[in-house]
């Protein structure tokens, strides 16, 4: 399996552990990722609030590069960051659906000597793992069964919405399935896709923190040992504000928040250095290592 | 001077096979020669256009004209002969339907000339020389007839009294025609002097055709060994028989070759190709879109197959070539 890889800005900074662990895990599964040449920012959500046409043009540059990069078959971009995944998918969809978007984008790209014919598939790692790789193949690689580990899968909003192509938009299950194939137990909680408030934590703090708190509290209430997620902003947000939440709302939360690819990596027996475990603020290894058959803390 | 009816034979764009077919009457030809007075037969004797022009109107009782109309010279002769003949009979597929030369209606005029004068495998013409259409020599002007953009059947130029179908018409049909003319027992003007039912009616293989025929695959004659006893269509080989006028006694199927449609459609059909296409497509078996596409690919050249003799007289008559119409005439 070969795919184009679009890390996006976050995975180059706050989301580095995601980038590292994803590459490691995909490599272990024999999937070849080629980073998209000279990719640029997807435009994200903020950009759309200023000028949508520019946002589309910006995102489309990446699609155009991808289309040019692949000659055999339709090019597929793997976009792990939720925002990037959404924006690229949206650009692709609206390019197909709305003439004025198609015309605009085509004209803008032409100005840069680029062309886009609309053939790129934008996909999320979860989609690839479930539908292309398949759970059995994942289970086969597991060296350390995550027996007895209670995992809350947190998808965040923008992976499954609004273009839920590979999973239910409000009650997705793909990440849970992957976690179970690692031997872990998944908690069934209703907030899997509820907004974490990340986009507000820098701006309207009160609102952001509240949403954040609700998620953490409910995850614990349902008996989770840790939360796995597939969105860099969510991971950052849920992890970095726990102290503040404890302070503001008199809570005693210390819940490891990690990328689902990191847990996969640990289960596969990949050295934690390659998974960026040490980059996390709340070290998940104790809770994992503490488990029988889990990963010894020294790994 | 004899009072035998004067007869003319003339050829336009044709291969000469029709002329042969007259000789094919074998000994019967003697009877014919006794009965008629041949006044025009360029293939056998020397005639000048001026001789014909000199004739009185309707001087020729009957003229059998074979070949399609492709050049201005042929057009002119057709018009002259129409004037000079009591009955004008389109003789053979080319005059009747446009015939094999009519397949040229799939190509632009220029492309045909280029191929013939420059590209055909047997041509060595590096300077790309083309014949002059007119030339002066010691004050004398000689011109070549104009090469038309479109091939036409005889009745697309002048009114035709009767048609003798076939490539070429069988001696039997010719003899019937001549006797009918001599006896003055002719069908209504404009008739085709052959039966009005399709070939299957007289095909020796008719009874071998299953009533529940469904064609799973199409083959071309060279791809299979055709069973001499069985209906050719039932063997998946395209046979134009069902859409082609009889009268030839199914000579080709009798000779283990599929009918290619030289006698044209029966009177109830306007477009021979369209009808056989309709019939074959309906009788083929696939239902799934891709399968349909694949099976019908077994007929690689629908136009060449279904309109081999009747393209100029089909509803469309000629391939549409927007680039080249309207044509600047030479």
């Amino acid at each position, binding site marked *: 399996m070969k795919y184009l890889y679009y890390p996006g800005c976050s995975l180059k900074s706050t989301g580095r552990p995601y980038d590292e662990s994803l590459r490691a895990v995909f490599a272990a599964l024999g999937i070849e990722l080629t980073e998209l040449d000279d990719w640029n920012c997807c435009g994200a959500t903020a950009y759309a609030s200023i000028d949508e046409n520019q946002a589309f043009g910006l995102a489309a540059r990446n699609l155009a590069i991808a289309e040019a990069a692949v000659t055999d078959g339709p090019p597929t971009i793997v976009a792990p960051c939720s925002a990037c995944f959404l924006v690229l998918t949206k650009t692709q969809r609206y390019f197909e659906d709305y003439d004025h978007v198609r015309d605009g984008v085509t004209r803008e790209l032409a100005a840069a000597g680029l062309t886009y014919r609309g053939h790129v598939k934008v996909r999320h790692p979860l989609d690839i793992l479930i539908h292309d790789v398949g759970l059995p193949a994942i289970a086969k690689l597991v060296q350390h069964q995550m027996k007895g580990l209670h995992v809350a899968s947190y998808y965040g909003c923008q992976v499954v919405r609004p273009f839920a192509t590979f999973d239910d938009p409000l009650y997705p299950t793909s990440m849970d399935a992957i976690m179970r194939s690692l031997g872990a137990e998944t908690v069934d909680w209703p907030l899997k896709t509820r907004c974490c408030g990340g986009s507000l934590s820098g701006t309207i703090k009160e609102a952001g923190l509240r949403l954040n708190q609700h998620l953490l509290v409910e995850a614990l209430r349902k008996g989770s040992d840790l939360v796995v997620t597939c969105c860099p902003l969510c991971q950052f947000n849920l992890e970095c504000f726990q102290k503040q939440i404890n302070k503001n709302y008199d809570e005693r939360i210390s819940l490891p928040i990690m990328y689902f690819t990191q847990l996969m990596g640990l289960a596969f027996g990949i050295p934690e250095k390659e998974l960026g475990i040490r980059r996390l603020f709340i070290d998940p290894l104790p809770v994992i290592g503490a488990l029988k058959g889990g990963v010894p803390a020294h790994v | 001077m004899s009072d035998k009816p004067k007869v003319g034979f003339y050829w336009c764009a044709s291969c000469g096979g029709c002329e042969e077919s007259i000789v094919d009457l074998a000994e019967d030809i003697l009877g014919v020669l006794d009965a008629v007075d041949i006044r025009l037969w360029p293939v056998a004797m020397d005639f000048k256009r001026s001789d014909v022009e000199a004739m009185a109107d309707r001087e020729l009782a009957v003229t059998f004209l074979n070949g399609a109309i492709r050049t201005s010279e042929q057009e002119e002769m057709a018009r002259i002969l129409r004037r000079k003949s009591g009955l004008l009979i389109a003789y053979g597929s080319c005059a009747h339907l446009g015939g094999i030369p009519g397949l040229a209606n799939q190509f632009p005029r220029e492309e045909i000339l280029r191929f013939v004068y420059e590209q055909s495998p047997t041509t060595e013409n590096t300077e790309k020389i083309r014949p002059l259409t007119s030339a002066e020599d010691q004050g004398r002007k000689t011109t070549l007839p104009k090469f038309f953009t479109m091939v036409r059947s005889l009745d697309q130029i002048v009114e035709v009294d009767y048609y003798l179908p076939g490539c070429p018409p069988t001696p039997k049909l010719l003899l019937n025609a001549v006797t009918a003319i001599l006896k003055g027992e002719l069908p209504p003007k404009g008739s085709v002097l052959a039966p009005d039912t399709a070939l299957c009616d007289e095909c020796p293989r008719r009874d071998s055709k299953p009533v529940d025929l469904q064609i799973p695959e199409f083959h071309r004659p060279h791809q299979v060994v055709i069973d001499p006893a069985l209906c050719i269509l039932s063997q998946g080989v395209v046979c134009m028989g069902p859409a082609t006028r009889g009268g030839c006694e199914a000579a080709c199927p009798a000779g283990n070759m599929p009918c290619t449609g030289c006698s044209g459609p029966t009177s109830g059909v306007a477009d021979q190709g369209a009808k056989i296409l309709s019939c074959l497509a309906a009788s083929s078996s696939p239902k799934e879109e891709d399968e349909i596409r694949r099976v019908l690919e077994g007929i690689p050249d629908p136009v060449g197959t279904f309109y081999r003799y009747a393209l100029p007289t089909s*509803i469309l008559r000629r391939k549409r070539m927007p680039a080249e119409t309207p044509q600047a005439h030479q």
Partner: protein
Amino acid sequence: MDRQQTSDSSGTWQPKIIAFFCNWCTYTAADLAGVSRMKHDSHFRIIRVMCSGRVDPQFVIDAFARGADGVLIGGCHPGDCHYMEGNYKALRRFHLLSRMLMSMGIEQDRFRLEWISASEGEKVRTVINDMVRRIRALGPLRLPAGLAELDGELKTREEEILHV
């Protein structure tokens, strides 16, 4: 003026499309489009037949030859034919015929077969609008006109011919 050179009130060329609709599905769908007041392009003319299986390729060719810029056949979805299998026959004829037409210089977009069930009034609208759009892009077919022009190469006045 060519017989098929339809032009609207503003004088610009407008395509003419002949649509053969089967009585049970597509014609009913067109009625439904009407009842639901679904406005769509007017440059097509419906001919009602009982079944798409009745559409003789001669009709299609004849329509083009008489000046149609496009021909549309509408039938019931596969499996839904009121007469069981007429639409399959139409489908097979369509494939062979459109290949024939293409080699006779008539573009693919000018000949179309669509399955439109009695309930798909909306589809009537979209199919027709789309087809008109494609044919506008192709421009007029001008078959009769083209042939008429070619006859210019013939001599019609006998004095040109007979040197008497």
